[in-house]
């Protein structure tokens, strides 16, 4: 490059890069590093999960039965499908099909919102019946009935006599923190995807330049991936 000030390439090429490929490679590497730190962010929670599960296996077993696996399963399917539409959005933006890109991104957002709606019902129910973390744990009303069923399901025999594992509160501590932080990532994802839709509609992305859509989809796959682990670890243990 001869002159630092001269325009040296297409509009989307930032001044400090030499070529569009260099710009794309840098963005991709940066994004993967970001995803690595996301995984380490969640890793602390996974470590805490395994420690408390090994300490209080009976509480985790009962706790798992207190979660509605059907809702969790619906959310898993919804999120997996949204990952597929996110990937399709990347494909269509690479082909320069702007309208299709918007459509796929919109479906992704709808799925993400659906996920949050299901999560909302799950959370409000848990709060309503007092199945809460730590010192807030105070089952009442239907919660007691659910607890009875969960204890019986977990132990397969023996009647419920009004006792439950004390450390159920630890299970709900872990449950709310893990799904809460995951939910926060879903919300952030919704915001970013909406922003991508706006930019796409304004014609910011072409066959040659669609890096932000690509990066957004990468992020969305990570959100999906974390849920893939959360679902069995929380909902499906015995």
């Amino acid at each position: 490059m001869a002159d630092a000030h001269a325009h040296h390439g297409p509009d989307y090429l930032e001044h400090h890069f030499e070529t569009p490929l260099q710009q794309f490679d840098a963005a991709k590497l940066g994004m993967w590093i970001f995803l690595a730190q996301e995984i380490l962010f969640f890793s602390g929670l996974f470590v805490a999960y395994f420690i408390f599960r090994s300490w209080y296996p009976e509480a985790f077993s009962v706790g798992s039965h207190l979660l509605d696996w059907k809702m969790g399963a619906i959310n898993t399917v919804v999120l997996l499908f949204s990952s597929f539409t996110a990937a399709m959005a990347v494909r269509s933006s690479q082909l320069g099909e702007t309208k299709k890109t918007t459509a796929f991104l919109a479906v992704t957002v709808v799925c993400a919102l659906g996920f949050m709606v299901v999560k909302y019902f799950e959370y409000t129910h848990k709060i309503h019946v007092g199945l809460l973390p730590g010192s807030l744990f105070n089952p009442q009303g239907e919660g007691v009935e659910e607890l009875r069923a969960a204890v019986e399901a977990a132990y397969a025999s023996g009647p419920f006599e009004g006792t439950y594992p004390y450390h159920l509160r630890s299970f709900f501590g872990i449950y709310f923190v893990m799904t809460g932080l995951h939910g926060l990532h879903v919300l952030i994802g919704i915001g970013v995807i909406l922003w991508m839709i706006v930019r796409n509609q304004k014609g910011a992305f072409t066959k040659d330049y669609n890096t932000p859509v690509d990066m957004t989809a990468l992020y969305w796959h990570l959100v999906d991936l974390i849920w893939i682990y959360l679902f069995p670890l929380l909902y499906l243990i015995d």
Partner: protein
Amino acid sequence: MAVEAGTAAPAAVENDESNYLTAKSGLKSWALTVDHKRIGVMYLVSVIVAMFLGGIMALLVRAELMFAGETLMEADTYNQLFTLHGAIMVFLFIIPSIPAALGNFFLPIMLGAKDVAFPKLNLGSFYIYVIGTVFTLIAIVAGRIDTGWTFYTPYSSRADNAVIWMTLGVFILGFSSILTGLNFIATTHKMRAPGLSWTRLPLFVWGIYATSVIQVLATPVLAITLLLLIMEKTLTIGIFDPALGGDPVLFQHFFWFYSHPAVYIMILPGMAVINEVIATFSRRKIFGYMFVAMSSVALALLGFLVWGHHMFTSGMSEYSTMIFSALTFLVAIPSGVKVFNWVATLYQGSISFETPMLYAIGFLILFTIGGLTGLFLGILSVDIHLHDTYFVVAHFHYVMVGGTVFGFLSGMHYWWPKMTGKLYNEGLARVAFGLIFLGFNITFLSQFIMGSQGMPRRYYDYLDQFQPLHMTSSGGAFVLGFGFLVLAVVFIQSMISGAKAPANPWGSAGFEWMTTTPPHAHNFETTPVITRGPYDYHLASEEELFDGFPEDRAAQGAKA
């Protein structure tokens, strides 16, 4: 000819971008800049302010400890002061000091790049740092922070709620650190100038690169730990609180899983600077270049495996303690590789003792003492005696101050002419070095002795037998403080009336000296092509090593 650009920029050229300091003016041109050099300067100012605050607190702590019993303040105030001293020095000063300030300024220049890979993200990192700092300051006003900088549970989860502000501040600061690391890794991989292979990379870049890897991989664990602590305090989720079935020792594991690697976030950049300074002032290629580069990477990786050595007395299984102890000794290998290679570089070098070199020599001595005393602490039986005594305090100050701060000061003096375009008063700078070196050793050698005799750290009061040593240590601290005052005079005087600096005042073969002083807004007039390594004095042309002004060149003739 290694770098074809900017070696002799004609003074007459009217180019408003030829100097990054004057390319644009006004507050907004700084506040919204995406130029890595200006962002580096803003970090530099911020970390120096933080260091000043933390330093004042250290002096107050030392003043209180001059005599047994109450001297200046109540125990409560004292507890807050040593906590804030630690937290400010670690999170606001040392961690961002070399990477975010000097690294931001010089990493892209050394790579021959125009900027970091993500300039806007870089500015974002700076503002995240500012926001984190604001939260930390709110915490100081909001209430009592007396948990120690480590925020150990269960005390922190029951202590004053100002701890929430403080941990939130540190949480936010962590993201600044992560994003800076991310930026530097991508920059090092993707923005190198043509010809700049990994084996030609300046060792400063290798050091900052290894640091960045730790920043990206360790800091998120601190983030989640502090977030859990905040939730413990606000929602009582029962993860760290034993009354609710939680585990306070889990907090210690999480905390040190970050904070031990963080020790390498602090020391690796110090080592990184020392490479450049030792090579320049010995006029020699760094001995065993690849070993030094790889020892940085090895330290970054080993740093993740030794966190347990902070917890030998916290109730781990004896098998864990043995493994952690053995792994801790492994750290001595790459550290030793570095020190021996630096000494080997000096051997038969053409050494000169300008101020940056004095700090580098100081680093070699102090870091070696700090490193070797670390081995004492890694021995399980000895650690039972020394744990939580002044011996530990002295050990990590030898590494953090004797290592990182000396590295930082060495880099400040070394690159000052490049950053500001001004020279400083060499005589006064040497006086400052003498005071700092002397004051530091008086302060902390006495703490080694106290600690080995059983004086516990963080105590407000002590037995009469420790009086002389405490007095000596405090006296040393004031000499050290006075040294920093002289240093401030050196830099302020240079800014006001310092002589104009030539492009390469030290006659270094390093790439950052090949551009003009102060650097062009885009670092180089044209993208440089690299044809040799940064320490290849035998391949550098006389023009590249010329240490005067271009206009004097003809008069002085060829000069090596």
